[in-house]
């Protein structure tokens, strides 16, 4: 008896340890892969390799890390980041405000789909950068034209996901709501939007990526502030350290914003 109980107690413990070890190995492999990448980079630059690409022209990773540490103390670095974050946030909010109702409408009414979709399909394949001349003409300030580009980036993915989500709302849920006394307008709030929420978040996570693409494009082409502007400006000033810091900062910001969307999604969609 005693032996059996001991065995039972030991078994899950050993199993847990094995799991922990597995996770530790995974982290070790991931860290090693990043270090290996940095090492390869360092070696390529150190020996001034010029073939097949001109690796020798790049700054060394350690120099970049040093410069980044200095940047982290400077107000300017944070100002640039804040400017870009603000533009992306504005674009995403505007995108949600326009794309969700439109997507719902197009999804539910074949007439709306016929009316609006041909035009939207015409604009959708246009790359964000190609919107810039028109944006400059339409808006009086550079700020608003950059926000317009981020809005366009967020708009289309959210629109398409919303349209599909609206079409997939089970009719029985809508009918059940009607039978429980829910009128046609309240059904939008109480049934369609919550039922579409997972789809909206799918659109949002694609859209936020496109928004970052848009903001960097806009800032590089016409901005006076922002992390995209700083990256491009540094290149023109031959400050390659700063260019590469800008590049990685953009990557980290994109990563952080998708993590934020996922976190919000987890708190909003608790039923899955």
């Amino acid at each position, binding site marked *: 008896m005693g032996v059996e109980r001991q065995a039972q107690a030991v078994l899950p413990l050993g199993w847990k340890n094995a799991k922990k070890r597995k996770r530790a190995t995974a982290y070790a492999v991931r860290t090693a892969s990043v270090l290996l990448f940095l090492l390869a980079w360092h070696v390529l630059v150190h020996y001034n390799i010029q073939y097949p690409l001109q690796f020798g022209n790049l700054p060394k990773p350690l120099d970049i890390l040093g410069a980044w540490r200095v940047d982290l103390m400077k107000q300017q670095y944070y100002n640039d980041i804040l400017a870009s974050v603000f533009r992306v946030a504005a674009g995403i909010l505007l995108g949600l405000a326009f794309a969700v109702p439109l997507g719902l409408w197009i999804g539910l009414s074949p007439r709306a789909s016929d009316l609006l979709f041909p035009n939207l399909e015409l604009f959708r394949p246009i790359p964000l950068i190609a919107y810039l001349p028109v944006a400059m003409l339409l808006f009086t300030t550079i700020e608003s034209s950059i926000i317009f580009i981020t809005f366009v980036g967020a708009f289309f993915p959210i629109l398409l996901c919303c349209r599909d989500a609206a079409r997939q709302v089970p009719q*029985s849920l809508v*009918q059940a709501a009607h*039978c429980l*006394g829910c009128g046609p307008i309240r059904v939008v709030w109480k049934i369609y939007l919550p039922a579409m929420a997972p789809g909206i978040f799918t659109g949002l996570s694609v859209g936020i990526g496109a928004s970052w693409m848009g903001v960097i494009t806009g800032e590089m082409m016409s901005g006076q502030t922002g992390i995209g502007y700083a990256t491009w400006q540094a290149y023109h000033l031959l400050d390659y350290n700063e260019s590469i810091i800008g590049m990685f900062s953009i990557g980290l910001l994109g990563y952080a914003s998708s993590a934020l969307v996922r976190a919000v999604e987890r708190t909003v969609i608790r*039923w899955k």
Partner: protein
Amino acid sequence: MRIDIDRVSKTYQAGTGMKITALDSISLRVDSGEFICIVGPSGCGKSTLLKLIGGIEQPDAGAVRCDDVPVGAPSTDRGFIFQDYALFPWLTVRQNIAFGLTIKGCSRQERKLRIDEYLRFMGLTGAGSLYPGQLSGGMRQRVALARALCLRPKLLLMDEPFAALDVLLRQRLQEELVRIWQTERMTYLLVTHDVEEALFLADRIVIMSPHPGRIRSILPIKLARPRRRTSAEFIHLRQHIMQLLEVGTAEAREERTAALVLP
């Protein structure tokens, strides 16, 4: 609630442009407090009939009246239990039951009382904060019942409510349903595939036949309650209804073949 169904027809336009007569001039009268079961082979228009009474669909011809008022749109007087339960997956059990009460404008206090009452009644105490995805089939069924019943409808329409459940659970819920019906005394209309279920529950059984959907016969069931599924009478009646159903399907098939052969 009394229901008058007066020569109601409903056709659907299939994707290919073909017309399907789901219901062909159906007439039926249901008295207040009656328990009616509708049986019939698949595609004979049982769900369609229920939706017309609920106001979810509109008839092409004829009229449905409930207590002499023509049915236009859905109303909270007529509860509807959907075949797939149609619980709102983003709401907890409590919030699902509260849905209709909130829209009705019940005060928070009254709502809480009513929900607690029905949670207890349905044996769902303790499950109030779960989401539908976390419930078993039988629990979902009871949440759907509670959600409809807490609005105190005068008529309850149920579309194959127990079809997806195993035999034992189905029999237990059938007994519960009879108990609820006997305490609340409203009109029940229940669609089923299961002849035994209909025999166990109904005051009258409406037998339908397909292509086009018609009422083939209406059978009053005089068995005393509580009914026993193993009594000789029960088994005899079940046999009888099975026969009626088989003949109905065969006839419809013959008619269709004849229509195909003759120009």
